[in-house]
Every structure is written in C-alpha cells, then in structure tokens.
C-alpha cells in the first residue's frame, strides 16, 4: 500500500515544544487541535507546576469550595485524543536557539522545530528586608493557596501588601480564613490602576464596611521575625508597626522572561519577551504568548483575555493562516469580595478631548463615571458599588449608546430611564471579552445552531466560560433571541396550569386564595377548569398554600378540608410510603442531639411494633415497616415522649445537622449544636418547592458538611459564614458563600430572607442548587436581593417567615387530637380492625424486611384484569 502523504510519519513530523502549561498554553493547544495542527505535528509540553493547566482567574474560589479538580481547564481525554505529550513538574532550564533544543532541569534535552514560550508571570516581591521570613507568601498558584491555608490555621492576623485587584482578592480570602485582615497600599487609594480618586473613596468605604482594615499611602519597609523565626510585624513607612502573623505579597506581577533573556532573545526594557503581531520573538522559530510576552503595541498584558487572543494568533500562524494581535481591552470586574467594582475601556480618560460624566453618592458607597469622546462615543468607565450595567456598557464601548451618558449613570429610581438592555447593542459589540464573542455570534448560536439555553450557548461559543462577568447579559440575549425567533416555550406548570409555580405563588398570595378549586377554575387552562387537576399541580399548589397559610388565612394544618386531597400520599399519612405499602416513621431530632431517655423510647417503640430501625444520613433515626393503622399508636407514644414530626415525608425542612462544636471539640470556635437546634426549630414545618437541608459546623474543618446543604453555616472566630445552594444527591453542588462573619441575629435574618425568596421564586421540585444556577443573575442577584434588599422586599420576606414561625404546630400532635382525622388511618374503610394481610415481613440480620414475594401473588380471579369494562 502506498504511503499517503497526508499522514506524516513520526520521522518527518515537526516537533512543537511548549514551555509552560498555564491558561494561555492550554488555549493554544486547543487552538492547535481545532486547526488540525495536532494531527500533523508532535507536540510536547513542559509544565513546572505539578498539575495540568487550571483556571487561575478563579483561583480564589478554592476557598469557597472549588477543588483543584474543579478548576482544571483540561477536558477529559483532551491530551490523549490529540496525542499531546505533557511533562508535568518538569521546568525547562535553558534554550539553545542555534541547536534548536530545550533542556529541562531534570537533564532531558529535546529538539524542536517550533518553540512556544507561555511561561506567564511571577509575583513581584518588593526587596524589603525580611521578605523571605517564614509566614511570607505570594498568591499565584494552587500550591500557594494550600500553603497559606495551612499556615493560617495557626495565625490570627494577616496583612496583604498591595491594594490592587489581586490584593483585594487575597485579602478577601484571608478574611474568609478567619483572620483579622489588613491591606497596605502604597498609592493613595485602593485599586489605583482601575479606579480614580472618587471611585477609590467609594471603594474604601465599602471595603472598610466589610471589616477589612485599609492603610493607604504607606509603604512596607521591613518584615520582622519573632523568636520562633516567623513573621511577627510589618514596619511601615509612616513609622508605625503592624503586628501580623502572616504576610501575602500582591504588589504586581513581572513577566517570566529569564529563559528567553538567557537564550539571547530580545526582551523589553521593563521586561517581557518582545514579539511581533504574529507573536513571533526575535527568533522566527520561537513564539511567546500570554503574560510573558511584550506585545507589538508595547504592552505586557496581565489579563487572560489578551493572552487567549495571542494563543489563537500563534496557533493560526503555525497553521499558515493570517491573524494578528495588536492590542486589547483592559476591562476588569472585581469578583469575590462582595463589592462591585468594574472598570472598562479608557477608564482614566486619557483620550484627547474626552469628557467625564460622574454620579457619586458616598453615603451608599456608589460611584459611577463614564468617559465620553467629543463625538459622544462611550470610551470607558468606572463603576463602584453597583456594576449591574458592566456587561452592557462594556459592550457599547467604542460606539454611541442610544441613551445619554447622564441618564446612564443615574441609579434606578432617580429619574433613570428604563434600563438600557442588551437589545440595543449592535451585532459587532463584544459581549464576552474573555473569549471575544460578539452579540452576533450569540444570536447565531441560537438562530443557527439551535441552542435554547445559556449552558448550550456557553458550550457552543465559549462565551461566559472565562471570568463569568458576561453571563447576565448572555442570558438576556439568549431569551430575546428565542423570543424573536418565535420559539414559544410552554413554561406552564403542567397540563392544568399555563403559569409557572412562581406565578401561581404570586396569584395565591395577592388574591389570598386558599382553595385549589378556585385557583383551577379561575386561573387554570381552559381545558382543565372544572376538572380534578393532576398529580403534578395538586401537591405543588398544596405546598404553596401551606407555605403562605398564616399570611393568606388558610389553615396551617395540611390535612384540613380540601387541602387533604392535594397532598401526596406521604403528606396525607404524615409518613413515607415503602415498597410494600408500609410506612416509615421519622421523629425530629433537632441538630442530631438526643437524650438517653428519648433514645430508650425510640428503642421501646421499635421493639414493641417490630419496626426495622436505622440511623439515617440526616443524623436521626428511621423506623420502618409500620402499617397505616399502626401510625397513630406509634406516634401517640412518640408525642407523649416529647417527639415531633420530622417531616421526612414533606417537601419541607428535613434536618439541620450539626457537629459537636466548641462545647467539646478542641477546634470548635462557636456552639454549632445550639445554632443547629435553633435553626431546625425555627424552620421546622416550612413547606417549600423541594426539601430543604441544612447543617452547622463549629469550624472550618466542616465535620457537619454544611457546604453540601441548601443553607449551610460554618463558624468563624467572629461569627458565622453562611453558604447557600449546596446539594448532595444526584447532582452534587458545593454551596456558595453568601455572607461572612455574621452575628446570630444577622445570620437568622439572612436565612429567613433567603428561604422565603427561594420559596417565592423557585420551580416545583427545584432544589436551591438548581434554582441558584437557573435564576437570572445567579448568586450575585440573590445576594443583592437578600443582603442588600435591592428589590425592597426583605421586610415582607421576614414577616412571612415570622408568620410561619408563630403559626407552627406539630402535625402529628394535631392529628392525634382529632378523632375524625384518625379515622383515615385504617387499612380498610369497611373493616377498621383488620390489618392489611399483604403487608408482611420476614427476618433479616436480627430485624425485619418487607416480604416482597408475597406481593407477586395475584388474586385468584385476576384473569379478569385487562378485560374489565363498565
């Protein structure tokens, strides 16, 4: 068989060597694969770090629960599929451009045809005496974070040198680790590169308001060590000393150009490997991309988006296509700290003849500035305190917005016009600057590639998969495009109702409707009015009426009148149905704390009724195998002993798990058991769109697994951190940090609001995790609503919860008190004393299990089945 020239043999395949496996290198590899170069060349990557490329931009999210694996940027099987050889933990020590070889530190030498340098930057550590003392760190790699986390366990105070973007991020992280945190910034304001004086003042107020201590206009002169040889204090240029246990340097980064320098490649005066518009260095066989490169416009870019553009440019050059990188935008938006800060375009107004439009309200920490050209084009801007418009404004940069700049800076409610939506953007506007995706491309993804949701569009265009700051605008665009293309998505709850659960909630609340029938006959789909409803909407409406009961004047008792007909069988019998028709019994054990006396009662009841007993995953005890007619007797005993319903059957609060906490545990910093009990008693019986779970841990070690809960609480030295949207189950999700260092009252207030906002806006059977992912604006929006009260509804949410708490009654105690209700708990309506003969048990491991074979026996005259007609 003749050799096909299209498939190069190993001998004639060129070798491309990449130095560094960071974000930009990975993007370069992806671009090579997309362009088919991986099939034609051998590709070898040397990485200094012990792990493949990860998302450095989201580095800090490690502290809010992302694992190093979550942060990985290398798709499963990507390297194998494209035959890319990755040598981790293998730094390159030198390059010989004449011999065209690289030598690694471990001695291996490899010949290249093309060399690509993607070595990134290193954090700059100012040359102050003592800067290498134990306790000094930088903030760049996962390894740095692991080291800081470990060291912080034995520390109380931390100081960050540098009040720029990264410094604030690092400070937020230290604070999250429970340290008293200081920021030392040489410039007269925070984030001097991004914001001007006015913006700095607003930012300072907010940052200080969060409990961080800021020292501006002072330099660090020396780090002093204590007797143990570890950091003890920082001496500042104003003569003062700042006692601290830990120092993080975040005073800027410098390009890693030493390899290139040693190899004789041209480097800039202030660092950076000189490259042309195709990202070629002074040696045409060597490219440099990302933060290590000094681009053709004379700048070194410290952001990921320009690095990605360079990666694609170099990959195109290698594939023989035309592309060039001539410069990029420096827009940034601060994540994490909970302060909205954004700057984009020509934020400082350096363009000749430009004008500023400023709105400033230091009372509420708000500062907005837009820089406008003489002809009215938007050139750039700074937003502090409210960066809601960032995505849209950034996309408008370079064009004339349809609304005047004066109107754009006014806050909502102060005479601002209807918000400037992304609908007004031109198709060329770049919506996602991380991946350079235009509005036109997003519309195309919907119109031509059939995407019908944000996740699909993300996959198709990569928009929104970088820093995430454009996701909000993305959502608005996708919806607008879907609507425009006439896709009519029936968002109705079921065949009976055209409304969503949220809309039904609002109808029930506003009209104080306490009857399902009135809701169905008045607001159901035409075809469903007057009917019996269905198994989807009945429990959903039952839950809405139950969670609003005290407020709309319905009975809080779920088996009252018509409500009884709406409940799923579990709610109807206040127990969980098992496979053979028996039920399980789960008494509430708040926080998992139980007295020996109560344990004995449970044991006695189980023994007497022959129930299978098991400790659940929710820190309580489940008794299985009760016949429906035994439930009242069993519960009679339990209620007498002081137990209540555990609502294991309801879409309601399940458990608030706890760890033993500071009372006993040597690490505990708060009484987690008390808090868990308080929370469980407060929210017990609360009906919601899906079940609700919670946990409270006594310290960062997190023995109660609070970050896997709908709302989780972790103790800090100063109070409590509140996490929301966690989930175990089928699609596990780590919870997001909503607020930090809360006092008891503040914690409860935020949870009240969070839960009521969720109950109000979630879909049926939508856990908080899915809701948080779906709801427009995501976590930021929820934080705005429940922490900052941006919708002005917090007072109402709190009062709804207060109504719930005041109106709570134990369902089992109420049921036992009412002979009429008890009549329901019989196996047969015409033979009340007779137990169901098909509910039987057989022994297993000293207890019982359902006799399932018994159920396969069909009644004798069952031959009639299937032919029955009336």
């Amino acid at each position: 068989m003749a050799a096909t020239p299209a498939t190069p043999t190993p001998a004639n395949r060129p070798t491309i060597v990449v130095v560094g496996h960071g974000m930009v290198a990975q993007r370069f590899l992806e671009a090579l694969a997309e362009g088919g170069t991986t099939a034609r060349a051998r590709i070898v990557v040397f990485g200094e770090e012990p792990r493949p490329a990860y998302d450095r931009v989201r580095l800090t999210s490690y502290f809010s629960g992302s694992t190093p694996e979550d942060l990985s940027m290398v798709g499963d099987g990507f390297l194998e599929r494209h035959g890319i050889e990755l040598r981790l933990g293998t730094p390159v020590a030198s390059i010989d451009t004449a011999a065209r070889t690289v030598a690694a530190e471990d001695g291996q030498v490899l010949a290249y045809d093309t060399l690509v340098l993607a070595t990134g930057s290193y954090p700059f550590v100012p040359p102050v005496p003592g800067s290498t003392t134990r306790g000094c760190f930088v903030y760049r790699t996962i390894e740095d974070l692991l080291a800081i986390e470990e060291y912080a366990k034995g520390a109380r105070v931390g100081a960050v040198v540098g009040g720029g973007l990264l410094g604030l991020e690092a400070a937020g992280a230290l604070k999250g680790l429970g340290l008293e945190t200081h920021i030392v910034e040489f410039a007269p304001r925070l984030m001097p590169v991004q914001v001007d004086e006015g913006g700095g003042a607003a930012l300072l107020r907010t940052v200080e308001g969060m409990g961080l201590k800021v020292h501006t206009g002072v330099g660090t002169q020396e780090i002093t060590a204590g007797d143990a040889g570890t950091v003890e204090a920082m001496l500042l240029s104003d003569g003062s000393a700042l006692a601290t246990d830990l120092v993080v340097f975040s005073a800027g980064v410098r390009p890693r150009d030493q390899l290139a320098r040693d190899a004789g490649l041209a480097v800039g005066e202030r660092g950076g490997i000189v490259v042309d518009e195709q990202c070629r260095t002074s040696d045409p066989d060597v490219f440099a991309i990302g933060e290590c490169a000094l681009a053709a416009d004379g700048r070194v870019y410290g952001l990921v988006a320009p690095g990605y553009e360079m990666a694609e440019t170099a990959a195109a050059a290698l594939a023989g296509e035309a592309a060039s990188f001539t410069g990029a935008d420096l827009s940034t938006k601060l994540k994490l700290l909970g302060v909205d800060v954004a700057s984009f375009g020509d934020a400082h107004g350096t363009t000749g003849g430009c004008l500023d439009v400023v709105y400033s309200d230091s009372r509420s920490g708000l500062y907005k500035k837009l820089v406008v050209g003489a002809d009215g084009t938007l050139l750039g801007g700074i937003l502090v305190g409210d960066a809601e418009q960032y995505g849209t404004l950034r996309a408008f940069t370079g064009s004339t917005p349809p609304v005047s700049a004066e109107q754009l800076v006014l806050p909502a409610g102060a005479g601002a016009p209807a918000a400037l939506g992304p609908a007004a953007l031109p198709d060329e506007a770049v919506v996602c600057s991380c991946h350079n995706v235009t509005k036109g491309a997003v519309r195309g993804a919907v119109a031509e590639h059939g995407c019908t949701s944000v996740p699909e569009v993300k996959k198709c265009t990569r928009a929104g998969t970088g820093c995430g700051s454009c996701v909000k605008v993305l959502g608005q665009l996708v919806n607008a495009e879907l609507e425009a293309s006439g896709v009519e998505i029936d968002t109705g709850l079921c065949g009976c109702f055209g409304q969503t659960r949220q809309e039904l909630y609002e109808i029930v609340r506003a009209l104080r409707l306490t009857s399902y029938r009135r809701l169905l006959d008045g607001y159901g789909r035409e075809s469903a009015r007057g009917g019996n409803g269905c198994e989807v909407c009945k429990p959903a409406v039952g839950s809405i009426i139950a969670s609003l009961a005290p407020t709309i004047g319905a009975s809080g008792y779920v088996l009252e009148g018509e409500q009884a007909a709406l409940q799923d069988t579990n709610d109807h019998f206040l127990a969980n149905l098992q496979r053979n028709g028996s039920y399980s019994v789960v008494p509430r054990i708040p926080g998992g704390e139980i007295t020996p006396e109560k344990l004995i009662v449970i044991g006695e009841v189980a023994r007497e009724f022959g129930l299978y007993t098991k400790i659940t995953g929710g820190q309580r005890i489940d008794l299985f195998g009760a016949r429906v007619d035994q439930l009242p007797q069993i519960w009679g005993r339990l209620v007498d002993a002081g137990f209540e319903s555990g609502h294991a059957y309801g879409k309601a609060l399940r458990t608030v798990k706890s760890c033993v906490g500071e009372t006993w545990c040597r690490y505990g910093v708060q009484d987690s058991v008390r808090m868990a009990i308080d929370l469980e008693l407060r929210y017990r019986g609360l009906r919601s769109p899906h079940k609700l779970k919670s946990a409270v841990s006594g310290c960062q070690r997190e023995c109660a697994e609070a970050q896997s809960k709908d709302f989780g609480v972790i103790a800090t030295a100063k109070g409590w951190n509140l996490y929301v949207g966690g989930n175990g189950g089928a699609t596990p999700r780590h919870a997001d940090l909503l607020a930090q260092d809360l006092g008891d009252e503040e914690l409860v207030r935020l949870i009240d609001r969070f839960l009521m906002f969720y109950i109000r806006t979630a879909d049926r059977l939508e856990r908080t995790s899915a809701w948080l992912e779906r709801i427009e604006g995501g976590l930021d929006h929820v934080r705005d609503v429940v922490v900052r009260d941006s919708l002005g509804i917090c007072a109402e949410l709190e009062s709804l919860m207060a109504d719930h708490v005041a109106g709570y009654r134990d369902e089992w105690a109420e049921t036992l008190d009412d002979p009429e209700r008890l009549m329901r708990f019989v196996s047969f309506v015409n033979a009340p004393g007779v137990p169901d003969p098909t509910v039987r048990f057989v022994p297993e491991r000293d207890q019982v299990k359902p006799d399932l074979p018994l159920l396969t026996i069909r009644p004798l005259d069952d031959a009639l089945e299937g032919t029955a007609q009336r």
Partner: protein
Amino acid sequence: MTLAPDKPLAPADAELQLRLDGAWLALCPLARLTPGRGVAALLPGGRQAALFLDRDGVPYAIDNRDPFTGARVLSRGLVGTAEGRPFVASPLLKQRFDLATGHCLDEDGVAVRAYEVRLHRG
C-alpha cells in the same frame, strides 16, 4: 366538561355500594370519603378495592393492587383529570389509571379491574 356543583349530589348518609358477582355489597357511608382522594375496602375472598370520589362527588372503584409493584396502594394515590376523564396516579411509581375503566394511561395493555359502584339512600 360541565361545571357541576362542588357539593356531592347524594346526602352524607348515603351508602357506597359495589357490585360483586351480580349483587350490591355495602361498603361505607359516603362521609368516609374525601372528594379527590380514595380509601381501600376489603372484599370477600381477600381482594381489595380502591374507592374514590371525584370533585363532583361521583364515586368510582378499581382494584387496589398496583400491577407495577404488587403493593395494595392505589387507594392512596392522587386523583386527577386527563382529557376529561378521571384517573388515579399510583403513589409508588406514579403510573395513572383511568378510574372508569381501570386502563393504565401510561403503559398500553396494563389494566386493573374496574367495579361498578352506586350511592344508595337508605
């Protein structure tokens, strides 16, 4: 679909009867049933029937055995309307059964026995 009154047509002391082997068998007073829900009844020979009232107070009866699991639980399902006909959804795996014919709406060829019922004024 007619908009029938929500009040049951029969007085509360009317008796629910089921036709078995050509004879009417008395089961319970109407008051023991809640519109939209069911109860189970034990029949001679050990069979079980699931009795229901729809929202208009019209009674139905089908066999109580869920053919998908074997458990006698259909009486504990939720009542609904699909295409104008009343059904019950099994509380275990949620398959729906037509209350008038016993036919499963979610899987062809599966059915449970349906019984004739009436309300008898004593």
